[in-house]
């Protein structure tokens, strides 16, 4: 009986979970940008905020594992859905005009998603893995002034800055469709709110990645 099937055994509910994890990451990105923005205006404010996020037990041992799971779930479920979708059309059309009925962003979420995944690898290599080593292997938790210096050091390399900028272009393209699509997946669609959500989605998809790009370029030029 269909009613006894597990939650994630329904294609629609897999998409529902995908949408929720995506919206969670959207909120996280906003928080990340807010803290990063302080680095442009005050190194002390950036250091104290980063130190709080890096040492607060609630953030470290509750929110960070939830975030890690959210990222892992969103990526792995995205790949699972992509495989299922490809299997649904084993023979492609010889001649097709998908641009007549849908946007490039909506059709290529897997490409932009994989590019973001590769960027996350670089980002973890740059910041998260050294952070884990410092705290959990070297046992250094009290250095409150290192965060701003580490940030500046990473954005010294023009190639790294270019990679960051390119990655945020992919993030923007991903968000352009993903943000508003998540609301459709959870069934939130009506004549009053949907136009607003679509506008908000476009604004968010441009402003947030652009903010990260500006911060990276600012620190590169400031050195």
């Amino acid at each position, binding site marked *: 009986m269909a009613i006894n099937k597990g939650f994630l055994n*329904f294609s*629609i509910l897999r998409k529902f979970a995908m949408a929720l994890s995506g919206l969670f990451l959207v909120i996280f990105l906003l928080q990340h940008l807010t803290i990063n923005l302080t680095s442009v205006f005050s190194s002390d404010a950036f250091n104290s905020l980063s130190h709080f996020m890096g040492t607060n037990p609630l953030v470290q041992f509750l929110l960070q594992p939830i975030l890690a799971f959210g990222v892992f779930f969103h990526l792995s479920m995205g790949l699972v859905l992509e495989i299922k979708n490809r299997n649904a059309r084993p023979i492609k059309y010889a001649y097709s005009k998908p641009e007549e*009925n849908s946007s490039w962003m909506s059709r290529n979420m897997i490409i932009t998603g994989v590019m973001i995944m590769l960027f996350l690898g670089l980002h973890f290599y740059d910041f998260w893995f050294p952070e884990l080593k410092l705290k959990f292997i070297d046992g250094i938790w009290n250095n409150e002034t290192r965060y701003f210096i580490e940030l500046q050091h990473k954005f010294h390399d023009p190639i790294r800055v270019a990679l960051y900028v390119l990655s945020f272009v992919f993030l923007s393209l991903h968000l352009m469709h993903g943000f508003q699509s998540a609301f459709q997946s959870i069934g939130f669609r009506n004549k009053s709110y949907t136009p607003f959500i679509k506008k908000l989605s476009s604004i968010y998809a441009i402003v947030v990645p652009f903010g990260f790009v500006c911060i990276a370029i600012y620190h590169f030029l400031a050195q």
Partner: protein
Amino acid sequence: MNLTLKIWRQKEAKASGSMETYKVSEISEHMSFLEMMDVLNEQLINEGKEPIAFDHDCREGICGSCSMYINGEPHGPDRGVTTCQLHMRKFKDGDTIHIEPWRAASFPVIKDLVVDRSAFDRIIQSGGYVSVNTSGNSQDANAIPIPKEDADNAFDAATCIGCGACVAACKNSSAMLFVSAKVSQLALLPQGQVERKERVLSMVDQMDTEGFGNCSNTGACEIECPKGISLDNIARMNRELLSAKI
């Protein structure tokens, strides 16, 4: 007008097919696309060749039989029409037209441009109905008051002819627009309330079993649907399923 046609030919389900090229001449711009195909088939029969197999029935946009992927779009370049309602005036003299069958693992090709769409039938059989006692004592449906908006939305959903253009247009071969229209037309009406939860669970379960892909919300299905079925129905089905499951 004179046209070059590149058409998918496949002898049978298990055969490997290929695109074949044909020339047709003196095609009137007032012909429907299927009439142009009839002209080509007459030409092939006169030449002693196998005519092209394609689905068609009412030829007035109601039955949902005709199913051709024309120049990269289901039902061709026009909007809000089926292949039988597509007219040759949409093309120019000298054009090359590509014609393929719907492509989906759940719609296997039977021959040439004919695909097996019985997956849709099995989805309907799984729950797309209202169980009514037909002993003669049934209440007249028109005697039950229904809000105008619900009646309109249910009617709009019910205009789905099950042609499969949504599946053909979707990059994932998703059947969400079709299934959501069938779920919606009953979920919106009082007669559909009794089996509401079981219906959406069973129909989505059958849709998944048939191997259709997931919905990526590209909106291609809505744009290519000859009956203009709205994405609102997909959002409604998502709500219906979540509500039924929890």
